[in-house]
């Protein structure tokens, strides 16, 4: 008799969501986390004595269904009433600000009347598309060519939804879905800051720039499916409240959680009837048996490192090898002894984007894609201490910034000097928007994608485990034969960001995987 019904590898939010659903249906679940803290990239960590922050610093589209079904609100996860404004920073203080009021209506300032009018049209259309796609993010997309009418219906529904857009909107969707972000923005707007700001969420986390083809608009629509129509927000009590509420539900449902428990190998038994997952092997030799193993680790780590290619098909293993999963986003954490001031802003409000134009983003990408630092990086800056107490001593602050594009493979190889150089360059750039910042800095931490890879066990240091690009999405995510949460190895499932629908704090992959595992 196996000791557990299910072992879940990785207590990131998706692993926890999956664990909760399975345990609530009576399964005996063991959740193993390699780090000493649960939460993965959303885990709060002390980067300097008394200063804390998580790598994932905001939420754009966490699943409302998961919040409701797991009753996260009674376990301490509370959505705010207001989303964060997104601010396109301008060095001279003339910012572009996109905000949402309590009713969810967007307001845009700092742009021309013409752009304002265009924005209304843009928004109406994009929200229609985002709403059309939304149900499919939380649906298991069936394997093409396999299964009966019920499975075909999922695609029929998608077709119908498309058709219901009406002829002209449907045609327009077909046209813009694959457009590079640049083309879409140029069609609608004049203001450079606005264009850079709106295209940001189509690109961040993937190896993509404004001129990149391959479905950035779909990635944008994925994020626009959130409660605040894609505007980022912080739950009350911060990102950690998501992780803690999930832990609370997991524990209440009987999930056993072990931290400091890295899995060395997924144990696979082979005999005349083929392969079957047997459990996991820990580094100290301990063997834990289970009916199934569900991995929230990225596909590469799961298949190549934990399963081993000797248990996989050759072409399948090579599709995992070819997944585009190289991270290009670094993380800057600053411990400050006072509140930073940004030119033209009353306080360090919202999600501040430093990207003067789409060309700046493109040039930053051009450097990085050939393995060099961006001469002028672009970034997304948040001061979480503005919204949440307890991350720093009273009166002190933390800056959290996603910096693009920082190649995981640096041509000149990562070393202390290289890291210092780009860290200082990033701080210098940030100081241009926040004069006096340098004097406030108590400590600065710079996590390159390589650091994110080694600290958080994410291949390539890629948040999404595999880029959000059209050939790696939907029923192709991470690749066919593993895109429905089950895998070619009987008893092994995936539930992480490398599955449909993808990365970010959404819980959808964990939810969908549990649905697939529990299906009658």
């Amino acid at each position: 008799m196996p000791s557990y019904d299910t072992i879940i590898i990785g207590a990131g939010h998706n692993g926890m969501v999956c664990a909760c659903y399975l345990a609530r249906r009576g399964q005996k679940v063991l959740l193993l986390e390699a780090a000493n803290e649960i939460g993965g990239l959303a885990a709060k960590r002390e980067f300097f004595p008394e200063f804390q922050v998580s790598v994932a610093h905001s939420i754009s589209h966490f699943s409302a269904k998961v919040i409701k079904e797991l009753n996260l609100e009674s376990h301490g996860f509370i959505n705010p009433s207001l989303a964060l404004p997104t601010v396109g920073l301008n060095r001279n203080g003339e910012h572009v600000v996109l905000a949402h009021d309590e009713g969810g209506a967007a307001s845009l300032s700092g742009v021309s009347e013409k752009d304002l009018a265009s924005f209304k049209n843009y928004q109406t259309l994009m929200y229609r598309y985002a709403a059309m796609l939304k149900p499919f993010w939380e649906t298991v997309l069936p394997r093409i060519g396999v299964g009966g009418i019920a499975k075909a219906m999922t695609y029929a529904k998608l077709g119908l939804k498309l058709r219901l857009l009406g002829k002209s909107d449907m045609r327009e969707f077909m046209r813009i879905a694959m457009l590079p972000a640049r083309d879409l923005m140029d069609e609608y707007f004049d203001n450079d800051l606005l264009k850079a700001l709106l295209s940001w969420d189509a690109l961040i986390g993937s190896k993509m720039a404004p001129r990149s083809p391959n479905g950035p608009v779909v990635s944008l629509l994925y994020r626009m499916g959130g409660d605040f129509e894609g505007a980022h927000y912080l739950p009350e009590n911060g990102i950690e409240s998501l992780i803690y509420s999930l832990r609370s539900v997991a524990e209440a449902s009987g999930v056993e959680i072990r931290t400091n428990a890295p899995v060395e190998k997924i144990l696979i038994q082979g005999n005349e009837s083929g392969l079957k997952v047997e459990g996991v092997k820990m580094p100290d030799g301990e063997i834990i048996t289970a009916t199934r193993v569900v991995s929230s680790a990225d596909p590469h780590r799961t298949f190549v490192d934990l399963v081993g290619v000797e248990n996989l098909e050759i072409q399948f293993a090579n599709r995992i090898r070819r997944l585009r999963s190289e991270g290009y986003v670094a993380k800057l954490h600053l411990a400050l002894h006072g509140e930073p001031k940004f030119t033209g802003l009353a306080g360090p409000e919202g999600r501040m984007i430093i990207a003067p134009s789409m060309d700046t983003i493109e040039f930053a990408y051009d450097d990085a894609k050939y393995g060099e630092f961006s001469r002028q990086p672009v970034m997304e800056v948040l001061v979480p201490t503005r919204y949440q107490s307890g991350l720093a001593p009273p009166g002190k602050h933390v800056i959290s910034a996603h910096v693009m594009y920082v190649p995981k493979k640096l041509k000149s190889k990562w070393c202390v000097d290289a890291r210092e150089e780009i860290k200082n360059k990033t701080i210098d750039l940030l100081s241009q928007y926040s004069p006096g910042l340098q004097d406030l800095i108590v400590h600065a931490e710079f996590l390159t994608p390589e650091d994110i890879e080694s600290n958080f066990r994410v291949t390539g240091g890629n948040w999404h485990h595999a880029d959000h690009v059209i050939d790696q999405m939907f029923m192709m995510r991470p690749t066919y034969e593993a895109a429905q949460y089950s895998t070619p190895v009987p008893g092994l499932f995936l539930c992480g960001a490398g599955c449909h629908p993808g990365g970010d704090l959404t819980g959808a992959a964990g939810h969908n995987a549990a649905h697939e595992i529990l299906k009658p």
Partner: protein
Amino acid sequence: MGDSNTITVDPFEEERPKETHFHARMAVLNIRENWAAWNGYKLANYFYDAEYEYFCVRNGCGTYDICGMQKYFVSGKDAEAMLNRMVTRDISEMNVDRVTYLVWCTDEGRLIDDGTVFKLGHEHFMLTCGSPSLAWLEKSCYGFKDVSIVDMSERIAALALQGPTSCEVLKKMGLKDIDTLKPFGIKHFPFGASKDKPLMVSRTGFTGDLGYELWIKPELALEMWDSLYDAGEDYHIQPFGEAALNMARMEAGFIMPLMEFNEALKTIHFRHDHTPFQLSLDWLVDFKKPHFNGRAALLKEQHDGPEYTLVKLDIEGNKPAEECNVYSDKGCENEIGYVTSAMWSPVVKANIALAMVKTKYLKGEIWAEIYYNKELRSYTKVSRCTVKEKPFWTHPRSRATPPLPY
């Protein structure tokens, strides 16, 4: 430069078929200058006369140049695991100095190629096959920590010596105890001035008769040829080309790429390739092995049964059924398959063929519509076919150790 008459650079150098390590000797013997090509190397179609060479192989012995064959060293701690996952047979029980015939398939269980694995050491193998396979090997290695692939195709000279007198010739050549070498075994021999044993001999071949394959470094290739031909003078030694080989292998029931099968990685239409079951190579698929590439797909194929099956046909009359279709009725209304190779077999005295036939029709009548030509006139003839279970021709000496004297 300057004077155009003095330019000696050949602008087509890269395009021309290369010469193998035995070319200097073969060129002299290739009276008809009838060259074909194999993997970029010149290879004789026949040297003098295909049928003559065939009879030499069946009654004396013949040499066939296999320098064009692809040879890969697969080495390292994970070499066995990597190969065992790639091929459908289980090689984990193989001993050192043994050879095994095997096939490998895509994830979908479609045949990529057939070949042989030589176990040269505990972590050292040689894989041979008909077509360049480096890309597939590289893919197959992905994820294994300790395995290296070295393409030895140009660095090993290889010559097949096949036929009833082959053992005697090698004995005369001085290969001590060659007669104790078992089928699919390997032995290493001293040769020439060298102190070590540079000559490797495997008891393998593609003719269904007693035969050996000789492997040596290129510098010693011609010396080996001369020594072999000196020893073989009284044993009817004769080089043979592709045409004679094709006759001999057909009688033995062996399959050929581009005749019996298409390599799966080279076909465009998904039904133009084959599974091992279609090729009647069931015996090469070992489901006792928990995992190998294509296993799940092949298990399904075994369960469902292949749509087509490669069979051996004995056909009435004496007109070779080359390139014909076969039917379930004499009226040729219901087409059930096609002939892949066909010949009049002198040794069996039968009109033989290999054919792909729809499995469900195998129990019923099979008729071949044969087209032939007499002095520029075309004729058609419908002949009854009988399915043969055993190879058309084999000889006990090919399995006996020591081989029976001839």
